[in-house]
């Protein structure tokens, strides 16, 4: 399974954490499509805690974190 974690406004209608069967997705972009999230709405995409791009591959056991624009100090 791949664990998808949603944050801030991306939680609306999707919840906090969703498990997705690994065989159904190949890239982070596949996950964005699956959850109807336009890529421009994702400011930070982490795969296992590291900044990544939508075209990067995902695999079984990965944790994907999706953030809209957030920040502060």
């Amino acid at each position, binding site marked *: 399974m791949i664990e998808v*974690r949603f*944050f*801030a*406004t991306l*939680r609306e209608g999707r919840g*906090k954490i969703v498990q997705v069967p690994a065989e159904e997705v190949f890239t982070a972009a596949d996950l964005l499509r699956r959850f109807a999230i336009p890529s421009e709405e994702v*400011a*930070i995409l*982490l795969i*296992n*805690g*590291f*900044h990544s791009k939508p075209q990067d591959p995902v695999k079984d056991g990965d944790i994907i*974190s999706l*953030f*809209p*624009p*957030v*920040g*502060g*100090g």
Partner: protein
Amino acid sequence: MSNAYYEKIARINLTTGEIKVEPLDLKIAQKFIGGRGLGTKILYDEGVATADPLSADNKLVYITGPMTGSNSPSSGRYMVVTKSPLTGMIACANSGGIWGAKLKFAGWDALIVEGVAPEWSYINITDDKIEILDAREYLGMLSEEMDDKLKAKHGDACSVLNIGPAGEKQVLLAAVMNDKDRAAGRSGTGAVMGSKKLKAIVVTATRKQLDVIADVEALKEANKACLKIMTANPLTGEGLRALGTASLVNVINGIGALPTKNWQESYCPTADQFSGETLAEKYLVKPGACYHCPIACGRVIKHDDKIVGGPEYEPLWAYGSDCGNDDLYTIDECNRLCNEYGLDAIGVPCTIAAAMELYQNGCIKEEDCAGVPLEWGSKEALIEWTKRMGDPKTELDWLMSSGSARLCEHYGHPEFSMSVKKQEIPAYDARAIQGIGINYATANCGAAHVRGYMIAPEVLGIPAQLDRTVTDEKAGWAKTFQDLTAVIDSMGNCLFTSFALGAPEYASLLNAATGTNYTPEELLEVGDRIFNIERMFNKAAGMKPEDDRLPKRLLTEPISNGPSKGMVNKLDITLPQYYAARGWVNAFPTDETLKKLGLDECVGK
């Protein structure tokens, strides 16, 4: 000719009661812009660097920038510049709210406060009129109650800056508060006020806007262009208003850089419980904004039956994971207590975290804790020890209120103090984010995130996404961020505008308001000049090259858990690169660098 300054400084001697009006030297003001830059220049020239910080010889400069109170975005900032009793170096604590704008509307670019009052006093300013009044009836009062009482006395139109019990007692982690929940929080500026027996400064102004702008039409155009950029920017246009700075809890935890249990760990599995998302869901009433701010990052929350200012990211992290706590209500309460007692809401919880590690290791014993053991995650300990640090009585209260460096030194474990130049490090683990470590090590005020916020490029991808795990090019980035920050602070705008704006936009605002013709490159050179005069203040104050350091834990103890497990900070690589970029040798500018920056007064010192 108008130039966005009122060209007036009030010099208030509390020892003699003398109040002098001095003209602003416009040439010097424009060379250092105002605010942080000009405040430091004044103190450097007046020889404050060698003063005992808590003696009559230290001075407090309350200073605005040329943009403070203007119609430019987020222009409510003022600064308290002084010699810090916590670090023994330059302090420049920056705050928002409305107080700074009102000081400017009253016609003052700055106040220089000297001496020690014979009795507890406060300063009351109504436009041109400045008077020193008796403050004895307010002694021991919490900040908010005193604000209410002074408003009742001087009218609702006034704005109040004050210290709470912590400042009165010269606690080294004491903040200066204004407008109830805004703080010039760091470096112990509140203790300096306390040492001068100065309890508050009340300002009432007839003016409602600046009437000294050089080119009103040009500023209108520049404002319009900047607002357009800020509105279109997803962070300044929407993101910060929605969740505030608290939204960072999950991001920083997500990359494994959320210091936990005094930085023994860097990932907290339950961080979502004290995140911006949970704060919004459980307690948020509405966003809050400082003077003329379209961003509105502040949190107005419901706490028990009261509506109060809610926690920023820093107290959320520091009272949260760093103390092994994930109870958001407790953090809200501790944040409120910091505001009421007038305490640095970073330094206090970080010191409690250090004390908890001392307790974990048996250095502080249960019998030392007067009934409230310093156990990880103890809600009672967080609340009670915050109160004790705000109004210390016992030996341990006093030790803790002096900050983690002095506390851990006392117990023979200086390595437990996560501080630089005796000031506690903010919320980002520099083992997982290489560039922020350069800034922590070199910031002239001691560890600070808001002197060169490398989190923007290394984590948030602003203005470009850098790889947080490598050292490449980070020294140059850190220098540029530090220089631009010095400019923004000195102008009197909020640093958060820089999530959307860059040097060209700041140049357009400043030039329109003051009548100068700075190019973006020249403006960055002014920032460089300001950073260097701060460094020369520190040199005169006795700073040593070894003060540009990071705690041993960040250099030699790899991160123990989470996504960044195994990482350490590589300051040995980045610091020499940074010094080369600055034109410094052994932590200080060469005479050649000083001459190039027009700091002839510092050459040979």
